[in-house]
C-alpha cells in the first residue's frame, strides 16, 4: 500500500507547494463535508491530504470595491458576518439555506465551489453577485469569473495543482435588490431540486445589469443571460417578468434524477423566477 501522508498547510503557498509536489494524488481537506462522505462510501481513498483549516484562508475583508472571502471560511462565519450582511446580503441569505447548522459550521465556501456540484448553493449566489475566484498554484495566480469556473458536473477549471484562495464579490452598488429561493425535498438538510438567485441593481426603477442565476438545472450552476438581458434598462412589469421567467426556463437544461424530473425543474425555474422578480418589483 502506498504510504499515506497528511499535511497541515500553514499558508496557501505551502498548500500550493504540496499540490505541486504530489500532483493529482493530493486532496485538499477543509471542512470535509463532501470529501469525507466520499471516503466513508469508499469512492475515494486519498493518499495525500492537505489540511487547509489552519492555512490562513479563513477571513472576510473589505477591499475598496470588493468583499473578499478566504476560501476556507466556514459558512457559519460568512452568514454571521456584518460585512457580508451589509455588502452581500444575498450571500448570507443563500448560505442560511445550505444543509443545517452543523454542516455550515465546518463546510467552507471554497469547498462547496471546488466540489463542482451543479446544485452547489453558494454558486448561485456568487453567480448572481458577479463574483470571481482567485485561484493560486505554485506557478502563480489567476482570477476567473464564477461563470467560467464550472465546466461540468463535478468538474471545474481548477488544475490538480491549484486551489481556490479567495472569493471576490463586488460590493452592492446603489439600490441593488435581490431575492433567492431554493426548492428541496424538504425545508432543511436538503439539496436543491432547483434554486434561483437574482441580483437586480435598480437605477431609477430601471433594471441595470440584472443577474439571474440558476442552480441544479444544468450540468453546472448557470446564469440565465437572456432572461436578464430582457430586463435591461426596463421597469419590471407583469408581462416583462413573465417573459424573463420563460427565458430562464429555456436557459435551463435539467435532467431527471433522484431529486426531481426535468419537466418539474423547468416549470419550477419559471415559477421561481417569476415570483422572485415580482418580489423585487414590489
Amino acid at each position, binding site marked *: 500500500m502506498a504510504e499515506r501522508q497528511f499535511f497541515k498547510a500553514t499558508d496557501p503557498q505551502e498548500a500550493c507547494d504540496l499540490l505541486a509536489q504530489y500532483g493529482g494524488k493530493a486532496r485538499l481537506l477543509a471542512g470535509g463535508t463532501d470529501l469525507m462522505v466520499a471516503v466513508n462510501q469508499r469512492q475515494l481513498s486519498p493518499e495525500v*491530504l492537505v489540511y487547509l483549516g489552519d492555512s490562513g484562508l479563513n477571513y472576510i475583508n473589505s477591499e475598496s470595491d470588493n468583499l473578499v472571502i478566504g476560501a476556507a471560511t466556514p459558512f457559519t462565519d460568512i452568514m454571521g458576518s456584518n460585512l457580508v450582511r451589509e455588502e452581500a446580503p444575498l450571500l448570507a441569505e443563500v448560505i442560511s439555506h445550505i444543509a443545517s*447548522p452543523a454542516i455550515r*459550521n465546518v463546510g467552507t465556501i471554497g469547498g462547496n465551489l471546488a466540489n463542482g456540484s451543479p446544485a452547489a448553493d453558494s454558486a448561485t449566489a456568487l453567480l448572481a453577485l458577479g463574483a470571481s475566484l482567485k485561484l493560486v498554484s505554485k506557478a502563480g495566480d489567476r482570477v476567473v469569473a464564477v461563470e467560467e469556473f464550472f465546466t461540468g458536473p463535478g468538474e471545474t477549471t481548477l488544475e490538480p495543482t491549484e486551489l481556490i484562495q479567495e472569493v471576490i464579490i463586488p460590493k452592492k452598488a446603489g439600490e441593488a435588490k435581490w431575492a433567492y429561493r431554493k426548492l428541496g425535498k424538504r425545508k432543511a438538510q436538503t439539496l436543491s431540486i432547483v434554486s434561483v438567485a437574482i441580483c437586480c441593481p435598480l437605477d431609477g426603477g430601471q433594471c441595470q445589469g440584472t443577474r439571474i442565476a440558476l442552480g441544479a438545472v444544468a450540468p453546472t450552476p448557470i446564469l440565465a443571460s437572456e432572461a436578464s438581458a430582457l430586463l435591461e434598462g426596463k421597469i419590471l412589469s407583469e408581462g416583462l417578468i413573465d417573459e424573463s421567467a420563460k427565458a430562464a426556463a429555456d436557459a435551463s437544461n435539467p435532467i431527471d434524477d433522484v431529486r426531481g424530473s426535468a419537466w418539474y425543474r423547468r416549470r419550477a425555474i419559471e415559477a421561481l423566477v417569476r415570483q422572485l422578480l415580482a418580489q423585487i418589483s414590489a
Partner: protein
Amino acid sequence: MYSLEFTVNGQLCQVAVDLKTTLLEVLRDKLFITSPKVGCNTGDCGTCSVLMNGKLVRSCITNALSAQGKEVTTIEGLAEAGELHPLQEAFHDNYGAQCGFCTPGMILASKALLDENPKPTREEAKEALSGNLCRCTGYGKIIDSVMAAAEQMAQAKS
C-alpha cells in the same frame, strides 16, 4: 498512521489514526465513547453530533486529524460535578427522548444553540435543530425541552 492528540470531555487523549479515520470512529472504536451514533455515515441524520471547540459538528464526516489540538464534547461531558445539564433535565422532564438514538446529538445541538442564543424563539430552536433527524417524536416535545431548559437556565442566572 498519525498521532491525534485532542481533548475529549476535558481529558487529553492520544490515538493513532490514518487519513480516512473519522472523528466518530475515534470516539466509538478507539475511546469507547458510544453516545455519538452511526446513523448514516453521510452527514445526513445528526445522530453523531458532537461539539468541537464549542461548535456543533457531524463527527461522522469530520476527518479525525482535523480535530488535532481541539476540544471535543460528547454528552458524557455535559454533566458537571454530577449535576445534569439543564438540557438533560429538560429532555427527561418533557419527554424529549423516545427511542433515545437521536437524543445525545439532539441535546448537543441544543446546547450549541443555547450557548449562542440563551433565549431562542421556538422558530430559532427549530432552525438550530433542523439537521438532527428524529423519527419518533415529531419534534414537538424536543422543542418543548429546549424552551424549558432555556427558561430554567435564565432563571438560574437571575
